[in-house]
């Protein structure tokens, strides 16, 4: 579904991503793990077109998108849930969700039934300001916003970072269901190895802007974890 070929990404003069080649298969969860500051977030941002400059190729559904504007990539079916959630604090929950609907190809602007099912709290509080929600609720809101675009591929950047444990479980369940029940393809950046093993089909380890190990999730051994993730 998504394939990057020798993808390089730069911020100003610093060369952040160095030749990333990765395939994300349709209907699978692919996880990227690695220590902080190795370029995982930059990788997702590069796919979305939000970095200063990239070289190399990004194929999405056999189409080259590396020259497209971010909104065109969003409209072609890639949704992005960024680190830190980045919901709009003074927009209502409804407005935040509908913001994602600008990427819908059929032009419909509605809160999807799926959101009501996954996040009943949000649908009961549509008029509340997004900034008044707790961190975990804001994370749910960011995922709801992405789902409003009716995407084919969803990019999730550390969805469980800085969230109370009770909600972590909810969000893990949601990611599981989105993939297993609804067939949504997921590219996940995650630090929690237990969850990566549980949810992913494939994994890739990033170190200093390069992918050093890739494989099926069964191959994610303690040795790899120790070598590339232990602080």
């Amino acid at each position: 579904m998504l394939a990057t070929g020798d993808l390089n990404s730069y911020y100003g003069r610093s060369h952040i991503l160095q030749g990333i080649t990765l395939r994300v298969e349709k209907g699978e969860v692919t996880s990227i793990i690695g220590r902080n500051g190795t370029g995982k977030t930059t990788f997702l941002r590069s796919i979305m077109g939000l970095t200063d400059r990239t070289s190399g190729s990004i194929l999405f559904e056999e189409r080259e998108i590396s020259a497209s504007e971010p909104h065109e990539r969003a409209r072609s079916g890639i949704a992005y849930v960024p680190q830190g959630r980045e919901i709009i604090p003074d927009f209502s929950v409804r407005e935040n969700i509908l913001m994602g609907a600008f990427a819908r190809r059929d032009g419909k602007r509605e809160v999807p039934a799926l959101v009501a099912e996954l996040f009943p709290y949000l649908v009961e509080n549509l008029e509340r300001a997004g900034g008044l929600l707790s961190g975990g609720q804001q994370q749910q809101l960011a995922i709801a916003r992405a789902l409003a675009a009716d995407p084919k591929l969803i990019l999730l950047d550390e969805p469980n970072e800085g969230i109370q444990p009770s909600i972590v479980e909810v969000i893990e369940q949601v990611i599981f269901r989105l993939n297993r029940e609804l067939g949504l393809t997921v590219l996940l950046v995650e630090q929690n190895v237990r969850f990566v093993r549980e949810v992913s089909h494939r994994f890739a380890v990033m170190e200093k802007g390069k992918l050093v190990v890739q494989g099926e999730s069964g191959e994610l051994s303690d040795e790899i974890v120790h070598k590339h993730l232990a602080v």
Partner: protein
Amino acid sequence: MVEVLFIGLSLSSILLLIALGLAITYGAMGVINMAHGDMVMIGAYVTVMSKIWLGLDFYFAIPLAFIVTALIGLLIERIVIRRLYGRLLDTLLATWGISILLQQAVRLELGLSFFGLHIEGLGPGLQKVDVPEFLRGTISFGDTELNGYRMFIILVTIALTFVTWFLLYRTAFGVQVRAIIRNPEMAAASGIDVKRVNSLTFAFGSGLAGVAGVMMSGFKTVFPDMGATLVVDGFMVVVAGGVGSIYGTILSSGLLGEINALVALASNDIIARAVVFAVVILVIILKPKGLFSFKER
């Protein structure tokens, strides 16, 4: 007293029409548009020239000036400003250059009688407009006599402010504009065509300034440099009101317009302008984020 407050309100209205456009483009796009005042000037000239060339009534100049200045704004955004997003000082210099170009172009074309050719109404760059008969008189409310034309300015401003509010807060387009104000990256990643929305926003702001020009042409002399001081007035309103706050802009234009009118009554226009400047400086010192900025950007 009511008459003075009323005059203040009409001054506030003009200020608001100028400042609304600036508030959106400066607040939303981080662009300091020094050519904004020249949209007022062009709006005023559209009023003059549509009468001379097309024989059109004053009322028709309002939509015409909106369209002309909005199109010019769209061109400026497409050709120059689009390349300068995120570079605040560069936008200031570039749009200042555009401002000089526009002023000189108008002066060359309309400012002087050229090659001995004389068109009625054209003098050394100075023009005036006759407002329709209907608006010239006064309207009485009990003991107070209110000038009809000033009343008209206030009504037009209320209507356009309502249109702006409706666009921003009640339409899908407005959601896109406000999303870009808050978080341009996330807006783009959510499928919003940021460039397109920005150029339409810029055009709309320019169009409002054009209408302000039509209103001004009815009671002030129209000349090529008239925009230079107006852009300063507009920015004073925006900064005093709080950048990025539409309500702040509305309240602050009301405040500054009334101060101007009240001081002008007690002394004269020059002193009034000085007092307005002093008030704005005081606001910047005491509340750097502006009087009415309810929320952080």
